[in-house]
Each structure stands twice: as C-alpha cells, then as structure tokens.
C-alpha cells in the first residue's frame, strides 16, 4: 500500500475525527451527570461554526468572533439544561431524551432563520496555505484543529482530575445516586457540564469551519458520528469516547478514499449497526443494558 496515499487519507481523517471526539466526549460527560443522552450535542458544533462565520460577516474582529461563538456554545448548553431538561427531570427517561431532540431542532431552525440557508465559510486562522507530511498535503488549518483539540482535551481531563467540580463529575459517572447522597450538588454540576460541552463543541465547530464550511443542517451528522464514537467507546469513559470519535474520523476518511465519498456515511453508520447487532445478538445474550451506561 502506498504510504503517501494512506497518510493523505488518515491525516484529514484525524482532523474530522478530532471534532467527532469532542462531540463524543460531550455526549459521555452530559450522560454521566444527567443520565440523558443529549441529541443536541452536534448542534453545538454547527452553532459554533455558523456563529463565528456569521459574526465575521458582520465585520466583527476575528478573535472576538471566535470568543463570542464559544461563549454562545457555553450559554446555549447551560440554557438547554436549565430551561428544557430541569423541568422534565421527573418525567420518564424517553421524554427527557425526546426533549433534547426538540431542542436540537430548535437550534437548527433558529440558525436557519438568522444566518440563512447557504453554507458559510471562514478563512484559515493563519492563511489558507498547505504543508507536507511525508508527501501528504495538508491545509495549515489542520494544525489549528489538532492543537485546539489537544488543548481542549488536556483542559477537560485536567479539570476532571484536579478540580473539585471535576472530581464530582467523575463521582457522578461512577454512581449518580451515591454521588448525590455524598452531597454533590447535581443540579449545579449539570449546568456546568452542559456549558462546558457546549463550549467545547462550539470551539470545535469554529476551528473546523475553514476546512468543511458551516451549514445550519450540519449538526445532525456531528451528533450521529460523535454518538457512534461514544458508543464504540462504551458510552461511559470519556477517554475511550475520544478514541472512538477519532476512530470514526479515520474510518470515514478511509471509506471515502477507498470506496467512494458518497458511500462513506453508509460505511460509518453500517459499522454502528453491525456493532450493535453483534453486541445485542451475541455478546450480551440475556444481559440487558450493559453497554448503554444510561439508566
């Protein structure tokens, strides 16, 4: 196999995989503290990209636009938890999840009305140049994506490891009930985690937009692919969710390169279906509920 061709597929795959990884991370963190799978997770990515591009269209300075877009992600995440999830907390589980689907649709709709139907673009943060890695050509923006992801992951994982709030989040992921009994303020924690995952998603959306364009309907893809990453990672551990997300990025890129770009989604979703069918059919004979992590 030609290494250059392979690298030319793997490295861009890694770039989109970074976004999926951050979405997967958000899925798992939100599910751990709230017990809810937040189907709006990918919409934060869409929101970040669209907001930044739209604000720059309004002649806002570049850095300010990025900051506002990220803050918007955080605000919308917190708002979602506070405004839509807290009131249905005592409802059955499927109603809580359906609420997140409704919220995702609202975000899509608002973006469509405000920013319009057309896809928006952003210039590369340090120009639209390219660089070479063993013969593979990559846009310089990839470095920004990798760097931002690395920083966000480092930030999130040190937050989880070294801060009190982070430890509380980890306690919740091990046993939500017990953590609550130990005095963890779950309500406040949820708002914080939703804000953090909103901000991470939005920033991911900002850095990826120069490479892929931003569009009001792009969130669904980010949600589903990030979710698949999280599921492959077991839907409980943040670290394996990140790996799952990266894997989906690579798989998608390889699928596009070796099969066809039209069929790449088919391959990724097919992997999810196959994985679930195998888990349900073979590995988990009789043992219900083991992979989901959710209640």
């Amino acid at each position, binding site marked *: 196999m030609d290494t250059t061709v392979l690298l030319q597929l793997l490295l861009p795959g890694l770039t989109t995989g970074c976004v999926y990884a951050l979405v997967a991370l958000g899925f798992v963190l939100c599910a751990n503290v709230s017990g809810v*799978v937040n*189907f709006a997770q990918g919409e934060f990515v869409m929101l970040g990209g669209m907001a930044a591009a739209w604000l720059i269209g309004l002649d806002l300075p570049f850095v300010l636009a990025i900051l506002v877009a990220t803050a918007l992600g955080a605000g919308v995440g917190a708002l979602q938890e506070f405004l*839509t999830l807290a*009131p*249905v907390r005592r*409802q*059955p*589980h*499927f*109603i809580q*999840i*359906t*609420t997140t*689907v*409704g*919220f*995702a*649709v*609202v*975000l*899509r*709709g*608002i973006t*469509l*009305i405000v920013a319009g*139907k057309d896809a928006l673009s952003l210039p590369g943060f340090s120009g639209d140049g390219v660089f070479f890695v063993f013969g593979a050509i990559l846009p310089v923006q990839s470095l920004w994506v990798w760097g931002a992801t690395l920083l966000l992951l480092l930030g999130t994982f040190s937050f989880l490891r070294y801060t009190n709030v982070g430890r509380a989040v980890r306690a919740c992921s091990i046993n939500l009930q017990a953590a609550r009994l130990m005095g963890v303020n779950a309500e406040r924690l949820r708002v914080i985690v939703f804000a953090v995952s909103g901000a991470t998603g939005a920033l991911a959306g900002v850095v990826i937009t120069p490479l892929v364009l931003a569009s009001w*309907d792009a969130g*669904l893809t980010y949600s*589903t692919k990030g*979710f*698949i990453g999280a*599921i492959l990672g077991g839907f409980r551990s943040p670290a394996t969710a990140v790996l799952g997300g990266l894997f989906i990025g690579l798989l998608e890129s390889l699928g596009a390169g070796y099969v*066809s770009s*039209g*069929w790449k*989604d*088919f391959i990724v*979703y*097919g992997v*999810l*279906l196959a994985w*679930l*069918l195998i*888990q*349900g*059919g073979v590995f*988990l004979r*009789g043992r*219900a*509920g*083991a*992979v*989901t992590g*959710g*209640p």
Partner: protein
Amino acid sequence: MVLLARRKSLIAALLFVIAVAVYPLAFPDSYHLGVGISAGAMAVSTVGVVLLLGLAHQLAIGQAAFSMIGGYANAILCVRYGWDPFAALLAGAVMAMALAYVVAAPILKLRGFVLAMATLALHLMLIVVAVELSFTGGPMGVTGIPKFHVFGISLADDRAFFWFVWLLVFGAVWIGLNIDRSAIGRALRAIAASEQAAGSVGVDITRHKVQMFVIGGGMASVSGSLLVHYLRATDPTVFGFSYSINLITGTIIGGLTSIWGGALGAAIIIFLRELLRDLALPLWESVIMGALTVIVLIAFPRGIAGFVSRIYDRMANEREVGRVVVTEPGAVAMQPLANPPMSHQPFLEVAGVSRAFGSLRAVSNVSFTVGPGAITALIGPNGAGKTTLFNLIGGYLTLDAGVVRFEGREIQALPPRDVAQLGIGRTFQNLQLFDNMTVLENVMCGQHRFTTHAVLPIALRLAAQRQEAGIRHAALEALGFVGLQGAEQHEPAVLPFGHQRLVEIARALALRPRLLLMDEPASGLNDTETERLAELIVRIAALGVTVLVVEHDMRLVMGLADHVVVMDHGEMIAEGAPDVVRGEPAVIAAYLGQEAPARAA
C-alpha cells in the same frame, strides 16, 4: 375506567368520522384535498409512533426509514415493474416490518436510547443508498408513479383517494386501540411502571417492544406508500430527517398516550405546515416544530388528547368510581388449583445457595425444602439475608453457588418472567403496584401468563375479546377473594396502604400460582389488618397454593406456619415446626442479641 376509555374513544371516533366526511364537501378543491390526504398519510404512521413512543417508551427518531422503504418500494415496483399499487403497498409494509424486526430484536436488548440512534443510522444509510444508486433514481428520485387503484377501483379522483387514505387511518387506529387495550398494552404499561413487578407476572418486555417496533415500522411504511402515490414522485428529500421530527412532534402535540391523539397530531402538523407556507414563513417550520415538542413535553406531557380527556373526566364527574368495601377474606370463592402438587416429592428445594455482595456474604450455603401445600415461613432478624434469598429464588438476583429446584426442575438460572411463567407468584415488601393503571387492570396483569401475546390475533381482534372477558372475570374473582370489592376502577395510589397490599396479593393470585412468595406482607399493617392477612394466607393455602412467607412478625408466623426456617447473618440457624424452633437457643440468641452458644455452621 376501561368503560370510560371506551366511551371517550367512541366520542373521538364519532368526531373523526364527521370531520373526515365533511372535510371534502367543505373543501372540494384539489389543494385542500391534497392537504387532507397528506394529513391522513401521516396519521397512519403517527398511530405507530403512539404505540412506540407512548406505549413502549421507545424514541422513534428514525421512523422515516420505514416510510422511505414503503415509498421507494411503491415507486420502484409500480414504475419499473408495473406492479399493482395495492400489492406494492403491502410488499413495502412487509419489507419494512422484516427490517424492523431484524434491527430491533437484538438491539432492544441493549435498552434505552441505543435503538433510537440505531434507527437514525439506518435512516441515514437508506438516504445514502437512495442518492447513490441509479436503481433508486439517485438524487432525482423516481417520477411517474401511478395514481392509486385497488381491486380494479380507480382512486384517481382526489376525493376518492382522500377517503381511501382515511379509511386506512381508521384501520390503523383500530389496530392501535386493539393493542392498547390488550394484554400487550397492559404489559407495556406495567413495564413503564415497574420492571420488577412486570417480571413477577411473567412479562417478556423485549418481545413486546419488538412487536411494537415491527407494527410501527409497518404503519410508517404504509404511510410512505400513500404519500408517494399522492405526490406521484419521490426523491431522497421527501423522507428526510424533518419527516421523522414532524412525526414525533405531531404525536406529542396530539397526545403520546392516546391512539386518537396520534391521528389528531398528524392532522395538526400538516395544517400547521401549510399555514406557515401560506404565511411565507417556511423557514420557521423547524423552530416551531422543535419548540412545540419541548414546550408540550414540559407543560402538557400528554398532549391535547390528555388535556381534553381530563376536562371531560371533570365535567362528566366520572371520577365517581365507587366505594371500596372490605369484606372477610374468601368472601368470593376462587377455584382451588386443578392439579395440586403431590405430597411425596419435594416441591421447592433450595440446596447450598450462596450469594455475596463484594465481601459481604448475604446468603451462605443455605439449604431447605418447602413441602407442597404447606405454609413455610422464613424468619430472622434484620439483615439476615431473607429478602436476598427470596430474590435468588425468584430470579431477581443470580446466585454464586447452589441449586434451586421447583417441582424437580432447576430454576436458579431463569429470569423472573420465566419463574413466573412456571407458576411462582410473588408480592413485594415495598409495594410495587402499577400506578398507571386501575386496580382491576393491575390484577388483570396477573393473568398475563394465560393470555395470548401473539400480536397478530390481538391487533386484528381475533383472540382478544373472549380472552379479555375471561381475564376480567378472573381478576374480579381474585379481588373478591382477598376481600376488596368496589375498588376496581380506582387508581391504586388513592387506596389506603392496607388495601394496596391486598391488591398486590390479588395480582399475585391472578397468576394462579402453585407457589406464592410473600415478602413481609404484614409490614405497615395494623393489628386488625394483620389478623385478616393471616386468615387470607390460610385460605390461600387451602386453595392448594404453597406459600413461602418472609416475615418479621413472630406472632403472625407462629400462628400460621407449618414449617419455619430461621436465618441469621446469611446462614440458616434452625428449621422445623414453629414450637420446636421457638425453643432453639440459637434462635433466641439471634432475636435477643445474646452470644450464640456454639452454633453449628
């Protein structure tokens, strides 16, 4: 409450029939007829969404996948192969149902949101297929789909097709109502209220959820077929993500827990969409649909149907549901067991059973037998491991070592529902009634193991009617037997605690158990109630039912039991007739907290 539901459903049916009859006369133009046809096509699938989302609690986020199969099956079979539209509609439904089964049967075991995402993935895969293959017409789709005709009757006239579509809606509603009111409907509601208790009456939850998924898939497919015959064309955008969202939003607005509400919701959504187009606000569709979903879920989780139904209840004052009369146990006779267990074989045998939680040995190496037809009591101080042992026998916990035999058959590896199917009933220490059903329906759930769960006869009302009458009769009998009459139409939560206990016992008796496990039935009861309970237990045993009761209350046990097993710290410390056991030093020590004199381990 059942009768009340019937009456409400009748009123809803009447209103729908009138609306459907009047609409084409009031709006005879082809635009309005088209809107009515779209609403009807959608209503066929929202009825399926009520079954899935409202009854089975499965988020139907990928329903458009099945509509897409129906739509494309019709497009391809009719246009390329010249099939009859009706035959193509049926073929599409069969394909969708087969696919739904293949996907749901394994994935439903994984529980929760996973199936929702799996069906969404399936939907997105189908979109790729539709776009990429030339067979499906690629991005341009298929055009020239013929107008519908069935058995040689042309439905080319919009008004005729309108009526045909709504006829199918009524068909779907009929199927939905049949399921909703059947043993399957009760089983799914039971699961929503308490999985443990549902298991205790033998409900196989995965099976019923798969059934709903397959039926919902079939309905979605028919809906897609009707839509493409109306549009005369299809392409991948017809069945996009927003199609699924509209289904969900419509169902939620109409009323998640009401079949008629689902149909109503579909009509509302379609008319709302047209209204937005008239107002030149098509971009607002997404925001409004999403916001309605969230707002209705927060403010009126049962939608318009739930709201209207509550107002109706209040106006008709239908909450007058009769006064509860408590009678002596056995006031209504129950049939004794037809084939009582024979006395020469061990009936229930617990041999060397152990279970540890981490380092805590909750039950260690316990062995005893329960003779047929007897009342055996399992006693011991708090934390002795009685309830754990109970849960091991009932299949609620898996054991680390040992064997449990029931009538010679090993049952320790069986899940609760299979244990129940063998004729082992149980009651719970902390009551586990289904608070989303009436008292009568709660007890009817006990009959689950005697009912048909095959979905086809139930959906088409081939078996249901006769069966339901029998179930109702048996449930009333059980309620009368425990001495609780007039409570049938109440919700269990409004009854006093002591009555709730009786409801749970009646539910377990409706199972016609050969063995009844009762977990601290006297806890929370006053003296009079405890006396009645003792009498009831004796009468239950007189039916030929073997009773194993875990109890704290020594007075109850000593007057009642033929045989007593005493546990302490997870071990069995004594066994025998009540008088003998009472004198054992180890038992006295365990209860009074003295140091046990050299007890045999």
